[in-house]
């Protein structure tokens, strides 16, 4: 695994985590 790929991998996982957190916030904020 090249350093360049490792950096990209970290970005992918970071973006996924942010996406899931945003979806979770959307769900919980507007849950009635």
């Amino acid at each position, binding site marked *: 695994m*090249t350093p360049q790929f490792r950096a990209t*991998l970290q970005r*992918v996982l970071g973006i*996924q985590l942010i996406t899931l957190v945003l979806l979770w916030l*959307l769900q919980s904020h507007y849950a*009635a």
Partner: protein
Amino acid sequence: MHWINWVIVAVYLAIVVGDGLRRTRGTTDIEGYFLANRSLPWWAVGLSVMATQLSAVTLIGTTGQGATDGLRFVQFYFGLPIAMVILGVTLVPFLHGAKVYTAYEFLERRFDAKTRSLTSLLFLLSRGMSCGTIIAAPSVVLSSIFGWDLAWCVALIGVPTVIYTVLGGVQAVAWADVKQMFVIAGAMFAIITMLIVRMPIPLDDALHIAGAAGRLQVFDFSFDLSKTYTFWSGILGGTFLMLSYFGTDQSQVQRYLAARSVDEARSSLLMSAYWKIPLQALILLTGVLVFLFYLFQPAPLLYNPRHSAQVQAAEPAAFADLQSRYATAIAARQAAARAAATVRHGGSDAAIRGALDLFRTTEASVTAIRTEALAAAERASGEPSRDVNYIIPRFVLDQLPLGFAGIFLAAVLAAAMSSIAAELNSLSTATIVDFYQRWLRPVASDAHFLRVSKIATAIWGVFACVVATYAATLGSLIEVVNRFGSFFYGSILGIFILAMMPRARARGAFIGLLSGMGAVGAVAIWVPSVSFLWHNLIGAAVVVAVGMLLSLGGPAATPVTSTGTSA
């Protein structure tokens, strides 16, 4: 349809086909025709992969699903980024480094010719038929919405696609995909903007109502094998499905085989990893916004106009009764939605809860009447209603200003064409490389192979259009083939996993493949409650287990390294 909309569609088609014709220049052999001489930049391959995966069904069906079922479907894609990362460090370097044309060619280098031929044949069988359904699904919707003959709708989608795919090969397909991805994204943003602008209540209030209706429920953490969309089926089953699809399906593999280098191939896959979940969430959210929009507008009882007319003709009294009850129910729901929005500003917690409860009750009444209407539509038409596919097209045509219908139709065509072109190109590659060149004519001139490749693409294109035209008649057959296809998706992944294990032998791999398919078939027949997302995991696990068991005791095979050479 207004002539301005037709001009928009015509301009789109002219650009895509014209560019395809331009890309025919400089292609003199099958490496150029099928793999663009391995010269494509990562971002073009990445957009091509995304456009291929985003079919017309995604654009019209998934948005409709968002309107009726909310965001929960996005869980289906939770495994995708994980799969992309795994593929980036495992299969992609092996396949790209091996300088193969098809994923299945790699299997002959590692195992034997019969494993390669069987996996390639399974791909041709399932994808050949599914290509027809990819054309049929939007054609049926366009035919019902506009009242056009189905054959003309198939021709509108199929003919330009076949022309630029046959003439331009993968160059035309990939660069058309790039443009098509922008057309699709542009149309989606235009529709979302209009929905927000035209929402009669503040967006924040509207989203609270969507939350009360369960449309913003994303996560389901229950571990229930019979539920299709849960967090766990998405993460586990979804990962295996995406590994199978992106790692072993020629229509996807061929995209990143055309990348300039292994790193660019990896980066192209990671583009999907970045954007797929946000994009799918946005598509579903568009459906949720359409649901909210129709809370304040007279929503059709049945969105499919053909089914609506058929029910009216077959059961006029029942239809009139349904219409009358529906009008009352949606008026009550509208009043409840407005009250729920108003009471949020200054009302007590109890009042807010009471207003939302009332809204939920009225929403349940509307849903119950719609369920009756859908059952009537199935009785009258003799086919599954699939009304969900008509929600967005009807919204665009009935509610949006002039020009939007043209933009939306261009986006539906773009989504359909990008998926079909990739399928045709990959079907032709597997036919020529895995069968014609492998078994019938190993040696011939570049010009000969290029000519037969174009002929094969054209034949597959005509076959797909014929299947699409007779999709209604072939309905059950197509379903059987698609179901059959899902039986071996995970098993083929299992074979590729075995291929990367030095101890696995050819005999074990071949029997393992048959065992995996048999196991998934047995589960589907005897434990039908197990959701299809788990089939891929089961298939892959059985292939690897049986394959390794039967390979025990033998010497380690000469491994094929990630540079494609035998060590």
